[in-house]
C-alpha cells in the first residue's frame, strides 16, 4: 500500500500537495491537464524530487528519505530508458545487479526475460540497433527482473504509434498482474487509462486527488478535466 501523507513535493518553485492512499496491486492512471504536476507526483514517489513536508510510505515503511535506488520502485521514463553503450543483456542485467556482477543463474534469467518480451536472440544487440518498440520491450524486461512492488510509468510509450502503444500497455498490464506490482502510470490518452487501469488519480491545480474508478472519472469529469479532455 502506497501512502502519501499530506506530502508536499517540491519541483523548483512549484509545489504539489498529495494526501492519498493507493492499495497494493492496484492499477492507477494519473491524469490531468498539462503542467498540472503529473510528473512531479511520479518523480516525488520515485525519489527524484524532495518532499518538503509530509511523508511517503510503502506498506508502513517510511521511504521519504530513501535514495531512488533503495525504494521499492521500478520506473520507466519518457525516453532514455536504456544505456546506449551497453548490450540488451547488460541493460536488462542491471535490473538484477547495479554492478553487473551476474551469476550463471542471473544470465539465464536475463535470457528468459528477453524471450518473454519477444526479444529472443537479441541479447548482444545495442539499443541503437533496435526499433522504438523493441527498446520499450527491453526496458520492460528489465522492469520484470527488478521485481519491485511499485511500477511507475512516465509515458514511456508516447513516441510509439497507436497499435504498438496498445501492445506495450497490454504487456505492462500482464507483467504487473504476474508480479502483483502496483501500477501508477501517467496518461494523456483516456483510452489508455480505460484500457489497463481500474482507478485514476486526478492531478490539477497543484493537488493530487484521491483515486476514483477510471471509467467514472472519465465519464463525469470535473470542469478542469473536461476542459482538458475537450
Amino acid at each position, binding site marked *: 500500500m502506497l501512502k502519501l501523507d499530506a506530502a508536499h513535493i517540491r519541483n523548483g518553485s512549484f509545489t504539489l500537495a498529495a494526501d492519498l492512499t493507493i492499495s497494493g496491486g492496484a492499477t492507477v492512471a494519473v491524469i490531468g491537464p498539462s503542467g498540472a504536476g503529473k510528473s512531479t507526483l511520479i518523480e516525488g514517489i520515485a525519489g527524484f524530487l524532495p518532499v518538503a513536508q509530509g511523508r511517503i510510505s510503502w506498506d508502513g515503511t517510511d521511504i521519504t528519505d530513501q535514495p*531512488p535506488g533503495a525504494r521499492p*520502485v521500478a520506473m520507466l521514463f519518457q525516453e532514455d530508458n536504456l*544505456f546506449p*553503450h551497453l548490450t540488451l543483456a*547488460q541493460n536488462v542485467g542491471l535490473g538484477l545487479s547495479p554492478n*553487473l556482477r551476474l551469476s550463471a543463474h542471473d544470465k539465464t534469467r536475463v535470457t528468459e526475460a528477453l524471450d518473454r518480451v519477444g526479444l529472443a536472440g537479441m541479447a548482444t544487440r545495442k539499443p541503437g540497433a533496435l526499433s522504438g518498440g523493441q527498446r520499450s520491450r527491453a526496458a520492460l524486461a528489465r522492469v520484470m527482473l527488478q521485481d519491485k512492488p511499485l511500477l511507475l510509468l512516465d509515458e514511456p510509450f508516447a513516441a510509439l504509434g497507436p497499435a504498438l502503444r496498445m501492445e506495450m500497455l497490454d504487456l505492462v498490464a500482464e507483467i504487473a498482474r504476474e508480479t502483483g506490482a502496483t501500477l501508477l502510470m501517467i496518461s494523456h490518452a483516456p483510452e489508455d487509462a480505460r484500457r489497463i487501469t481500474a482507478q485514476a488519480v486526478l492531478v490539477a491545480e497543484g493537488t493530487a486527488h484521491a483515486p476514483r474508478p477510471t471509467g467514472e472519472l472519465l465519464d463525469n469529469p470535473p470542469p478542469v478535466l473536461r476542459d482538458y479532455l475537450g
Partner: protein
Amino acid sequence: MAALIFGALLAVALRAETGRGFNAADWAALRFTLVQATLSALFSVLLAIPVARALARRRFRGRSLLIALLGAPFILPVIVAVLGLIEVFGRGGWVSAALGTLGLPPVQIYGLHGVVLAHVFFNLPLATRLVLQGWQEIPAERFRLAALLGIDGWAMFRVIEMPMLLRLIPGAFTVIFAICLTSFAVALTLGGGPRATTIELAIYQAFRFDFDLGRAALLSAVQLGLTVFAGGIALWLARGEGFGSGLDRGLRRFDGKTITARWVDALFIGVAALFLLVPLMAIALSGLPGFADMPRQVWTAAATSLGVAALSTVLLLCMALPMTAAIATERGRMVEIAGLLGLAASPLVIGTGLFIAIRPYANPQDFALPVTALVNAITVLPFALRILVPRARDIVSRQGRLGLSLGMAGLPFLRHVLLPRLRAQIGFAAGLAAALSMGDLGVITLFADPNVATLPLQVYRLMGSYQMEAAAAASFLLLILSFAVFWLLDRGGHRHAET
C-alpha cells in the same frame, strides 16, 4: 592538486627576494615580454580576420582538412616548428636564398621579429578558429535577409560581420596575449640576449647560469602576477569559447561572388596555408636524409620522451577523471576552480617552486623526468577538463536518473556508464596530454643534468652544437611521434564509442 600548485607557489614566495627589487635586466625582460606578446596577439588576430572570413564564405575541396589542420599547432612541438621556421626564414633558409638570387641581403630570424613570427605561426591558427567560430554563429537567416536586401562586400562587413568581430576580437586577442606571456621555448631558441629575453627565459637563466634561486623566485612571482591578470581577463572575455567543434558546418552564402572577392579570399587562404605548411615540409625534407644515421642519444631520448609522455598521460587521467566526476555531479565548485589553477601558474613557475621545495631533501636532478611529467599533466589539466566536463554533464543529466533508479549511484555508475560513455573524450584528452608532454621543452631544461634528455631537449642540444642535420632528423622524429601518440590515443577512444 591545489595543494601541489599552492605548495610550489609558496616555495616561490618564501624564496623571492623582494627587498632587492628589479634590476635593469629584469625590467628589460618584463618590457620585452609585454611587447612581444602584444605584437604576437595583434598580428595573429589581424591576419586571422581575412583568413577566417575567406574560410567562412568559401566552399572548396580540402576545406575541412585545412580547418582540422588549424588545430594541429596545439600538439605541434615548439622546437619542431622553430626549426622549420629557421629552415624557411633563417639566415641560410629558403627565403634568404630567394632574396640572394635577387641580390638582396639575407633575412635574420633571431630577435624580436623571430619570436613574434613563431608566435604568429602558433597562434594564427588558433585565432582563425576563434574568429571562424564567430562567423559560424551568425544565423543563416541573417545572410539570407542580407542577400534579399542586396547587401554585399563592404556593406556586409559593416552591417553583419563587424559587430560580431567587435564582440569577439578582444577575447581572442587576450587569449593569445596570455599564451604568449608564458612563452618559453620560442624565446629560448629564437630570442635570448639582453634585448630578447622573456620573463620565463629570465627565470631559466637565473636558474641555469647564475643559480640565483632568489631572483628566479622573484621573477616567478612577477610572471605569476602577469598570467593571473591576463588569464583572468581572457577567461572573462572568452567565456564559453570551446574547442571550435562544428566549424565545418556548411552554410549557404549568397555574397562575395565578385571576381575580386574570390581572388582576395583565395590569396588569404593560400598564404595562410603555405605559412603553416611550408615550415613543416621543410623539416620533413631536411630531416629525412639524416634519419637513418641519427646519433644514438636521439633514440635514447625518444624512448625517454615516450616514457615521460606515458607517465604524464596517466597522471593527467588520475587527476582529471575524479575531478570530472565531481564537477559533473555538482559536488565540486571548488574542484573546478582548482582545475583552472593550472592555467594561472606557468610551467616554469611551478617547476621553480618544485625545485626549491625538493632541494633541501634530495637532488632535484634525480626527479627531472617525473617532475616534467607532473608539470606537463598540470598544464594540460584545464584543457582536459574543458573536453571532459561538458560531455560528463550531458551524460549525468541524460542518464543520471536512470542510474539512480537502478541503484547504481557511486562507483557502479562511474564504471559502467560515465567512463564508457566518456571514452571518446578521454581518448582525446589523453592524446593531447601525451602529445604535449612529448613535445614539451620547459621544466626539463631546469632540472635535467647533461646525461638525461627528452627528445625536444636533445633537439635543442643538437641545435646548440650546430649539428643542424641531426637536429632536423631528430625533430622530424619528434614530429612523427607527437602526432602518432595523439592519433593512437584519440583513435583508441573513438573506436566502439556509441553516440
